């Protein structure tokens, strides 16, 4: 390999006195795909934001092609040719896809006015490159989470960069998009563009990365070649101890049908004539490619979107759900797909967020049992290993994965009898994932029924008792666990194979 491209040494950064990075070193060579790994809150995103000019480093230095440089603003890093796919989706919802992609570097005509035609043409090309099949004229707000992620990826490609930082680009993507992203990364490599790749999906790391740097608690653990290490050892480096059972799944008898949905069709026709059932103590998976309508189905079940037709029965009784409040009252819980938009009360504390659904337990007008509140919050902070200073920390300051755990905690605290998890492990580290799987297992053993929408095939295959595959708003297949096979599920999802 040629000479060092980017070199970060002794990087330090703290928030309100709490250190997030304590002297981190990082090196990057041209044309390499360098994985940055670590648990939630290890400091990966913070390190990258220092590079992006969003945070200013408090110690250490950054060298670019052997020249020491200072990055004080986003403009600085753009000038250096560094592009970012940030972990948290940040799109202007009212603007079109093309406007989002070229935000801040809009093409202009010779007379200084905007060149919209050119912008849309260029945007369409970028979307084609990553196999994204939507128009550049739709508003970003109308896209699903995965499609938004694709827009973020396209955005990183809008200028010719030397370095592209990808902070969990695949967290919201399904198999198909991941594959085309990887194809893209391989061509970038050939053009000697360096990629910093952050992900919690282990398989991906080994598939695409050349070297791996592991962080823990804001410090370097190790940097190694990907070929020189196996998954177990890598996980051990990240978590600090050996992880024995990853997918925890115990056999247990399943009960009667708790939920039966028949001929469900949404008013906006994003979900068409869907029928399925869920048994007590079952983990039911929903698989499909991006935009298959899984999220839409769950929203309909949860009373967020109006129905045109269909019947919902819980424990044999037909019910009407016209708002999330009704759903919660009938014992349904939903951990939404987009934590920032739909899950978190960002400017309030961790405990505020965790206890939001169970206020009745400790608020008895005009008294608030604060001790109980803390206790409840603390219980979940411990159980899910949420990394936070105190439970008074505002959620907005947590790392992405820890935010996800907070949302999960709220629903665990409400303890519904039917729990819908929409991409529950999105952005969660391996250790925590294992904990969540264990938790799911424990829940179903206690008689809770779980619906899991997931784009991560391995977790669908290993955790679910039964899987429905969706395509274009309809259910196209239903498979028992023993029949589950990654290839086949994908074929159904893509519509290559059809059930008779």
């Amino acid at each position, binding site marked *: 390999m040629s000479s060092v491209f980017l070199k970060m040494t002794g990087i330090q950064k703290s928030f*309100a006195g709490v250190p997030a990075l304590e002297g981190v070193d990082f090196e990057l060579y041209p044309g390499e795909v360098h994985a940055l790994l670590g648990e939630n809150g290890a400091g990966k995103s913070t390190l990258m934001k220092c590079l992006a000019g969003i945070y200013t480093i408090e110690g250490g230095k950054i060298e670019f092609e052997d020249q020491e440089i200072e990055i004080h603003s986003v403009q600085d890093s753009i000038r250096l040719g560094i592009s970012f796919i940030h972990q948290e989706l940040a799109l202007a919802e009212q603007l079109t896809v093309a406007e989002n992609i070229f935000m801040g570097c809009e093409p202009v005509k010779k007379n200084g006015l905007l060149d919209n035609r050119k912008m849309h043409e260029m945007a369409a090309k970028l979307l084609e490159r990553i196999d994204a099949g939507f128009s550049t004229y739709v508003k970003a707000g109308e896209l699903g989470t995965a499609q938004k992620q694709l827009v973020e990826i396209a955005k990183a490609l809008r200028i010719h960069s030397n370095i592209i930082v990808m902070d969990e680009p695949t967290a919201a993507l399904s198999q198909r998009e991941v594959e085309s992203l990887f194809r893209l990364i391989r061509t970038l490599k050939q053009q000697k563009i360096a990629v910093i790749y952050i992900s919690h999906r282990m398989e991906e790391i080994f598939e695409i990365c050349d070297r791996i740097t592991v962080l823990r608690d804001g410090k370097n653990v190790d940097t190694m070649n990907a070929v020189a290490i196996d998954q177990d050892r890598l996980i051990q480096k990240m978590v600090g101890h050996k992880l024995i059972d990853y997918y925890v799944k115990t056999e247990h008898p399943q009960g009667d049908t708790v939920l039966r949905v028949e001929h469900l069709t949404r008013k906006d026709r994003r979900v068409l004539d869907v029928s399925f059932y869920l048994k007590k103590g079952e983990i039911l998976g929903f698989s499909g490619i991006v935009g298959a309508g899984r999220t839409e189905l769950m929203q309909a079940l*949860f009373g*967020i979107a109006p129905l045109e037709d269909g019947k919902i029965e819980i424990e044999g009784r037909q019910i009407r759900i016209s*708002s*999330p*409040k009704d*759903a*919660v*009252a009938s014992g349904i819980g*939903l951990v*939404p797909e987009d934590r920032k*938009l*739909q*899950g*978190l*009360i*960002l*400017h*309030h504390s961790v405990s*505020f967020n965790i206890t*939001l*659904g169970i*206020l*009745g337990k400790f*608020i008895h*007008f*005009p*008294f*608030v049992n*604060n*001790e109980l509140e*803390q206790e409840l919050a*603390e219980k979940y902070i411990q159980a899910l290993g949420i990394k936070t200073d*105190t*439970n*008074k920390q505002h959620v907005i300051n947590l790392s992405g994965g820890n935010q996800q755990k907070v949302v999960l905690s*709220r629903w665990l605290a*409400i303890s519904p009898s039917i729990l819908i998890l929409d991409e529950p492990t999105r952005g969660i580290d391996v250790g925590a994932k294992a904990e969540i799987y264990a938790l799911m297992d424990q829940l179903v053993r206690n008689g809770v029924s779980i619906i899991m929408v997931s784009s991560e095939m391995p977790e669908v295959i290993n955790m679910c008792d039964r899987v429905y595959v969706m395509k274009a708003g309809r259910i196209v297949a239903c498979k028992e666990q023993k029949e589950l096979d990654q290839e086949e599920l994908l074929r159904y999802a893509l519509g290559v194979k059809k059930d008779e």
Partner: protein
Amino acid sequence: MNNKNNRFYRYRINFISSLKINAGILLAFVCLFVLASVLSSKFLSFDNQMNVLRTITTNALCAFGMTFVILTGGIDLSVGSFMSLAGCLTTVLVAWFQVPAILAVLLALVAGALFGAMNGFIITKMKMPPFIVTLATMNIIRGISYIITGGRPVLISDKLFQKIGGGFLGKIPISAVYMMIAFLLMWVLLNRTKFGRHVYATGDNLTAAEYSGIDTDRTIFLVYILSGLLSAFAGIVLSSRLNSGQPIIGQGAELDAIASCIVGGISVTGGSGTLFGTLIGCMIMGTISNLLNLVGVDSFVQLVVKGIIIIAAVYVDAMRKRKI
């Protein structure tokens, strides 16, 4: 960890926590207070302090309601009109229809709540922006109070009614007492009930609040009723002090109330801020006016000085917040 938590917990529930959160604006207030004492020898006198309290009552009552509204991410421009309507209604009932004062007050409060409910209904059920809805109802309600009074002051000689807002409790003006009671009630409502939490959650992230099973429409509906109720009460107290029903009172009251909230650290976009902050905001605004009047600053120059002091006060707060 638990230990630490426990410390935090004490912290939180105690009144001191409010002080902590509002340290910046409190500091600004203290500065202003000291400045005022230096500039005017009369400022610190008990009578003058009571005078300030009495004067800020109307604004504070409106601002308390406004706090809830802004916390949910809304705005209520109609508070001044509520004041006018409630004041006129009470005096018209008492003076023209010989309704007993207490009953008239209750009826006016009910009217305030009803019109507040109308605001809430249009905003939640018809899904229209609070700004434009309350701007419209501001006109409508003021129009109604002009119509019922014919646009002229309603004279009243009911002794009881005069006492409602003009009386004293010992040496403390009764209106200041109302303000403190309202503050305590609203504080409990905001900090010690589910409703209060829902207000914060709704304002911070409406979608997330909805997804959590909170009936956000109901929450929003209720805050407008609250705002209507409190500003109606403010109007009644002011009318009693004015000894007449005046349809023109409360003009610009909405800006004063909003300003007090924001000076007190309520975030304009909703979801964060404390009621204690609002109270301090009201005190700052009241003290500025009182000080300028005590010193006898020319009314044109007052405008300039007032503007500068407001910026300075909020700046002190902004500086402190950035330091945390």
